[in-house]
């Protein structure tokens, strides 16, 4: 059964949209600027960019403003905008080791070369409401810089050694088989087919919905899977965006993008006679460590290619992980389904009538036997 178009007054739809917009503008508070959103709610805008699969911080802030803070709606807006743009090219492939990290912690190695850099985080503080933030409202002048009194060194920036590289040097990680450089699949242009390649899995996870990744990753930790990783490291920093200059052919840097990265070492006990390590990797746009870690768990789980546990089933994970897909399917249910529902009503009534006729009305005072009804949505 297909969908049947319904009509309603366009003017009424516009009125409803106006009411939605009024909600944002109602009250005495000044409107939030896109610049404020980009600068002060960066984690929110980063989530929208990550789930939209589109890195453009200012546009992500605009999308968050338009969506009134709904990250999935915002990422939908970003993907819609993206669909209007031409692609200039793919970038030159950058190695993840080129990440300029401003935060790097290794839960696996206490004395990791390059050190543990906590960077900007509140991970090690108590989660208590800070009522002092309320006092910022309406305050004039520049806000106080909490780092103003810091006496920082003046060292040349470095890139920190990657923990996976250290494990490789120690022979604890198998060298990948030498394969020729292959063109990675692009799931924005070619739908994923199963079995999915690792490049497709990583791309889909990187643009997946944060909550969905977190829930599925958590399911593995709660026992619905074998993977309970030790994180080799978690990093936040900036990754260069490089192209070949159209005149000279030289590799040049256009800009850099903020990313969160996570790597995990996972002991796998499925084969008792051959215990081994598996590795998981997570990388996503913006500051979103939760998503990067969840992606790491799912990457490691999917490599097990199981069918019994949700997180280990690549088809299941990739089918439910995308925010646009799930948002669209869940929320479409609130749109008119009058014909579908009328059809169900007709069948139910018909079944009831046939049941009543069959028993000669003997059970007319009681409910008919439960009958399975198929819907065709």
């Amino acid at each position, binding site marked *: 059964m297909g969908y049947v178009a319904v009509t309603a007054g366009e003017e009424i739809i516009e009125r409803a949209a106006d009411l939605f917009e009024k909600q944002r503008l109602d009250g005495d508070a000044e409107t939030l600027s896109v610049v404020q959103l980009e600068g002060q709610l960066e984690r929110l805008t980063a989530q929208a960019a990550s789930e939209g699969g589109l890195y453009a911080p200012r546009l992500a802030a605009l999308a968050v403003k338009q969506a009134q803070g709904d990250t999935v709606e915002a990422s939908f807006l970003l993907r819609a905008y993206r669909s209007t*743009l031409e692609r200039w090219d793919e970038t030159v492939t950058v190695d993840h080791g080129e990440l300029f990290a401003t935060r790097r912690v290794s839960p696996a190695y206490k004395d990791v070369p390059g050190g543990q850099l906590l960077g900007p985080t509140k991970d090690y503080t108590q989660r208590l409401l800070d009522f002092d933030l309320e006092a910022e409202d309406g305050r004039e002048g520049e806000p106080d810089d909490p780092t103003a009194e810091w006496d920082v060194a003046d060292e040349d920036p470095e890139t920190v050694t990657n923990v996976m590289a250290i494990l490789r040097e120690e022979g604890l990680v198998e060298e990948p088989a030498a394969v020729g450089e292959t063109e990675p699949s692009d799931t924005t242009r070619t739908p994923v087919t199963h079995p999915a390649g690792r*490049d497709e899995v990583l791309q889909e996870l990187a643009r997946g919905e944060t909550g969905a990744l977190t829930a599925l990753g958590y399911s593995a930790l709660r026992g619905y899977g074998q993977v309970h990783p030790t994180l080799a490291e978690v990093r936040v920093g900036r990754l260069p965006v490089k192209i070949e200059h159209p005149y000279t052919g030289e590799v*040049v840097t256009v800009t850099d993008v903020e990313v969160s990265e996570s790597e995990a070492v996972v002991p796998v006990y499925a084969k008792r006679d051959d215990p081994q390590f598996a590795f998981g990797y997570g990388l996503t746009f913006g500051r979103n460590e939760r998503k990067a870690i969840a992606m790491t768990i799912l990457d490691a789980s999917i490599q097990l290619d199981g069918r019994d546990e949700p997180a280990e089933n690549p088809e299941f994970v990739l089918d439910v992980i995308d925010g646009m897909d799930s948002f669209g399917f869940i929320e479409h249910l609130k749109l008119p389904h009058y014909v579908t529902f009328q059809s169900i009503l007709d069948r139910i009534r018909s079944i009831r009538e046939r049941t009543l006729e069959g028993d000669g009305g003997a059970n007319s005072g009681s409910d008919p036997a439960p009958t399975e009804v198929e819907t065709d949505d």
Partner: protein
Amino acid sequence: MDDPNDRADRFELIAACEGAVLARLANEILESDPPLDVLQEPKPQLLMQRVREPVERRPFNLGEVVVTPAEVELGGERGFAMRPGKAERAAFSGAIVDAAIAGGHDRRATMTDELAAAAERREAERRRAWNESRHTAVEFETLEDDG
């Protein structure tokens, strides 16, 4: 990326320079009304960011980055620029600046100084970010059980 006279270095300097600086430089170049052809209109486009992951060392597509490229011909010299984000004016200005420097414009020295100064500011920001991060370096200690 420190030689504004080198095409590749200049590309990076223009990409990193503040848009307002580029716009001012481009306006100064256009004051004398030189012949200008737009070879590529500045409009936002996409770059698919490719990253090599560490497990199997294979590339994958992380996601797309919005950039704005532009290309002009100024007085017979081509200029190309690409700016991050939706930045039509900055990209167009950057392409004009690129062409002007390549063509030996009278104000070439001023322009290269401005680009070098912008690069210094950017490097200072990067340096500050690194050193602030280093200021949060911690050594975790394991509490051994003597018993």
